[in-house]
């Protein structure tokens, strides 16, 4: 599904140079559920943003679904993202001016999906995350857990092959967090590949494999369970 070779990211600002990722070699198979852990500032978000085609590496190679994408232009990356990649962020990142319904519908508009098809798919996915009753509300009127469920609905509406989640339970209490984790596990058993950054060992336990990052390096990997080949 994806593979990196010596992936390196350097941030330069004025005098300081930060090596956020240092020669990372990583492969994720289709259907896998991978957790990424590590101390604050070790490069987890940077890695996720590059894997999710939101950013490009300074050096190294990256194959997404067989295509080498490390130096792809922003336009091409955006095109590739749509329909293939879903994102879930710690801070939900919903659009405040749009209703829940329209937030979830948005990716389909970008993809040029017909109105009737859009209606069908949005209704179905809102049902899946049990938020249908709130479809006419705006994000600010929802609790954190509800907003994250909407964010997951928005991430999966385009049937992406892979979901990248950056501390999806970071802003939630344990009950709401557990619900989000169950949704992600469900999506994975339905065949969606998941790469999730987390600080929670309990959340990481849900994954097939845990990758430990430290100072921009992968220092160790830990297999938790076998991947079910669908």
């Amino acid at each position, binding site marked *: 599904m994806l593979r990196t070779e010596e992936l390196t990211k350097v941030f330069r600002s004025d005098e300081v140079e930060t090596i956020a990722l*240092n020669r990372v070699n990583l492969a994720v198979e289709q259907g896998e559920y991978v957790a990424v852990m590590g*101390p604050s500032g070790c490069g987890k978000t940077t890695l996720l943003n590059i894997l999710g085609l939101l950013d490009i590496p300074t050096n190294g190679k990256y194959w997404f679904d067989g295509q080498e994408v490390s130096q792809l232009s922003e336009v091409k990356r955006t095109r590739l993202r749509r329909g293939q990649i879903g994102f879930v962020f710690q801070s939900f990142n919903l659009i405040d001016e749009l209703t829940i319904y329209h937030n979830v519908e948005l990716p389909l508009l970008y993809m040029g999906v017909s109105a009737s098809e859009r209606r069908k798919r949005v209704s179905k996915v809102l049902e899946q995350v049990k938020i249908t009753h709130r479809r006419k509300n705006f994000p600010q009127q929802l609790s954190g857990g509800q907003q994250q469920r909407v964010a997951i609905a928005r991430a999966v509406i385009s049937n992406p092959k892979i979901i990248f989640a950056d501390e999806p339970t970071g802003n939630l209490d*344990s009950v709401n967090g*557990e619900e989000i984790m169950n949704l992600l596990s469900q999506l994975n058993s339905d065949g969606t590949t998941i790469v999730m950054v987390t600080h929670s*060992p309990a959340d990481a336990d849900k994954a097939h494999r845990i990758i*430990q990052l*430290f100072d921009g*390096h992968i220092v*160790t990997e830990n297999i938790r369970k076998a991947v079910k080949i669908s």
Partner: protein
Amino acid sequence: MKEVCLPFTDLKDNEIAEVEIRISERKRVLKYRIESFALAPPEKKKPGTNEKINLLREMIKAYDPDWELIQILDSNEGSNYVQLLYRYKK
């Protein structure tokens, strides 16, 4: 509830902390350990990043196989120690 947060008031850089949790009804004991590793003797200069990483990888690999690494913890800024959270495999 899936996690318990235990504040440690004064865990020094090179101290080992052990926590045991007994869940009586299920007769299950969970053992955790926070292990400190020095990445460089304090009086010496800091090793280069790659050297440090290789050292850390070796230390993790060589650790008692009855314990599994759960998490690398945030360490204090400028500390030459790294703290690792291990769990005893039943």
